[in-house]
């Protein structure tokens, strides 16, 4: 791990520590709004928890995992120490300080605005400053990856950028650019109000700026998982990556299409015209393509391994895969959840089908299936895979690891599938309590009970994960083999020039941003009458 061993451990450690706490909050939320629990005396507590849970799970946890994984990829694939180690540590502490600041403010009830902020609701300025610190810390990481890649290129002119690093940097650029939306919203709209310089805010413009970040942020979360599909799975199961080129293409397609499509979150909003919504819809359809390519490439890579192990038949080769390997199990579970979640995403993608379930519990069920489901299970796989190199310890019983993954998968399915059904029944989101005796809500009651059960399994699994890692530290040290990522089936020293650099894709990303977001933002800024009085939250007493 060169010089980043402790750096990566710190990132993962804080990430999963915060994750474990937020996990408990999530289950508490599910319990208190279910038929199993009476109505909360103070609904503000619920929204406080939702804000904390969302902020940690959305802004802190995946960011730190991506950062840590990113540093590890850099040193392993470029075969050199990280340039700027001290800066990396500063970035880490920025994220930590930002998190603690935001958490303290939220915990004291001064910023129950939810992680999506939703002005004109405005909380205490320190909460937003905390979030901004987290983002700025992550931007430092983006810069460091570029610096490290540039240093390597200088020493290796004209050589092919290692695939894993290429995907890593693509993901970092996607994040760097997509975070701009929420930073603009915080800097220019929310903080001036929270700090008292202004008293009005344009809610429509804020939603548009937030949507800039809101969609691609989930791809930022997803990219480490996809990197693991391409670069950890094949190696782990004794195979090779089916196609390096297709893999690169998938990641740059994400870079181009993931961000300028955020307005599909605003299909039902009144401040954006239908033509803009159609543009976003068209490009949202395009962002399904890299996932579809990935499914093929990864399945092909797995099939290679299976057939080498003697697998036969059109589908029978699946049985020959190394199922006792936690990486194989994790990826398979991830694919199942990605399949269901992706299908749900197709529903969300078009206006016509989206309007049946917009802002119902379907949406919450959907993103819990995709993110905590398909993606976080891959975060577990990544940490498990890197653990011997990071901590210098073996994982211990693989049966326990497999149990943890099984529990996560089963828990997630029980948690989220009924959750989708509740949305189909029209159950609205984000309510602290529901009257399950009312005819409109009575059909939904069982779904929430089921989600409580699924959530309990998920909590157990999450803590089991932490236990597995921590308990490994009590064992004696080992000297693991040098960590490496998968190799491609057909290694060639050359790739198409466009897939060895980022210029074309970045240019396309910026252009599409301009085309898809330029006019709405410019227009909304111009209108004076749509700035409405801020509603200060946490102002009781």
């Amino acid at each position: 791990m060169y010089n980043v061993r402790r750096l990566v451990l710190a990132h993962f450690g804080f990430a999963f520590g915060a994750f474990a706490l937020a996990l408990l909050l999530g289950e508490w939320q599910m319990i208190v709004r279910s038929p199993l629990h009476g109505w909360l005396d103070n609904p503000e507590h619920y929204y406080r928890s939702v804000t904390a849970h969302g902020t940690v799970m959305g802004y802190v946890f995946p960011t730190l995992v991506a950062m840590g994984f990113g540093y590890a990829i850099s040193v392993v694939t470029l075969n050199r120490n990280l340039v700027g180690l001290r800066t990396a540590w500063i970035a880490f502490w920025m994220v930590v300080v930002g998190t603690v600041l935001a958490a303290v403010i939220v915990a004291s009830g001064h910023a129950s605005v939810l992680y999506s902020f939703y002005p004109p609701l405005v909380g205490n300025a320190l909460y937003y400053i905390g979030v901004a610190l987290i983002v700025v810390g992550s931007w430092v990481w983006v810069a460091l990856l570029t610096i490290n890649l540039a240093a390597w290129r200088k020493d290796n002119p004209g050589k092919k950028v290692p695939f894993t690093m290429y995907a890593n940097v693509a993901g970092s650029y996607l994040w760097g650019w997509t975070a701009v939306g929420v930073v603009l919203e915080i800097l220019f709209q929310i903080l001036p109000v929270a700090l008292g310089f202004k008293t009005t805010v344009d809610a429509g413009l804020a939603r548009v700026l937030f949507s800039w970040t809101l969609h691609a942020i989930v791809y930022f979360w997803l990219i480490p998982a996809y990197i693991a599909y391409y670069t950890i799975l094949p190696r782990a199961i004794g195979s090779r990556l089916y196609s390096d080129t297709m893999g690169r293409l998938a990641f740059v397609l994400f870079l181009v299409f993931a961000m300028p499509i955020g307005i599909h979150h605003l299909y039902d909003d009144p401040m954006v015209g239908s033509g803009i919504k159609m543009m976003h819809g068209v490009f949202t359809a395009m962002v399904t393509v890299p996932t579809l390519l990935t499914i093929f490439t990864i399945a092909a890579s797995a099939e290679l391994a299976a057939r080498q192990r003697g697998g036969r038949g059109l589908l029978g080769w699946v049985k020959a895969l190394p199922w006792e390997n936690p990486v194989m199990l994790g990826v398979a579970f991830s694919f199942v959840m990605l399949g269901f979640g992706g299908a749900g995403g197709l529903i969300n993608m078009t206006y016509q089908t989206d309007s049946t379930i917009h802002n119902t519990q379907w949406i919450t069920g959907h993103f819990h299936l995709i993110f905590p489901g398909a993606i976080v299970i891959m975060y577990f796989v990544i940490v498990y895979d890197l653990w011997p190199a990071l901590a210098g310890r073996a994982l211990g019983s693989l049966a326990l690891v497999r149990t943890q993954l099984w529990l996560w998968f089963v828990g997630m399915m029980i948690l989220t599938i009924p959750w989708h059904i509740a949305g189909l029944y029209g159950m609205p989101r984000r309510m602290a309590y529901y009257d399950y005796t009312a005819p409109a809500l009575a059909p939904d009651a069982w779904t929430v009970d089921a989600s409580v059960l699924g959530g309990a399994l998920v909590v157990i699994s999450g803590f089991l994960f932490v236990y597995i890692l921590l308990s490994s530290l009590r064992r004696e040290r080992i000297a693991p083999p040098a960590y490496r990522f998968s190799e491609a089936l057909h290694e060639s020293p050359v790739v198409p020039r466009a897939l060895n650099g980022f210029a074309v894709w970045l240019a396309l990303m910026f252009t599409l941003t301009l085309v898809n977001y330029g006019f709405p933002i410019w227009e909304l800024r111009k209108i004076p009458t749509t700035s409405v009085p801020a509603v200060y939250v946490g102002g009781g007493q």
Partner: protein
Amino acid sequence: MNDNLGKWAVLAVVAMMLVGGVIGFVWLPRVVYSDQGFFAAWCSALGVPRSWAAFGARPVAKISSDVVITHELLEPARPADVGHGATLALRCTMCHGPTGISYANSPNLAGQYAVVIYKQLRDYKSGMRANAIMSEMARSLSDTDMREVADYYASLPRPAGFQLTGAAPAVVKWGAPMRNIAPCGSCHGDIDHTLASPWLKGEPRAYLRAELTAFASDQRHNDINAQMRAIADRMTPEEIDQAAAYYAGEH
């Protein structure tokens, strides 16, 4: 996959933009807004703010209040304002008490939000809210007077040692979701506060009951957008009693 990939990619994206643009800005708007010209339909699809025809308002039959509630409505109180307000308030002490805590069933004003007091005075003066005594009182106050009186009372300490006794009744704690009644405290300050919602704790029971009943029967109608009328309307008389008793600190 060759070195022209970059060029092909740019061409493909441009093509997608054109196709999306034609569908979204030309074809679909022409079908849906067939009553508009090409340019107008294009602008509508783009999101240029326009007015949807023929939805003009009917003549205004009645309005609730002529006060526009914003954060700029009242400026931050200065000591001189509070002082002058105290002088003006001498005429209020008969009903509202020398310390803003009334002896009778007039509302306690001590520690009430300034915006609330100001709005009610404005409404009394304009006739949006009617009360034999208060309408007369308000008529003699200028706008500046009202602001200063409001600042003064807001600066006074709330009833000391006031304790809410007993558990809050269901309608106060949780409201009644299916009847669209929110917990009182979500606007009135116990849990969170919305601008121009009065602080209720310690108000006289009889006053709270009378006002809720007046809202329910439409007798009082100076609440903007009928916010309180809608709620009081859906509360049962028992719930009104319970809520009034709770906030007054009685059972």
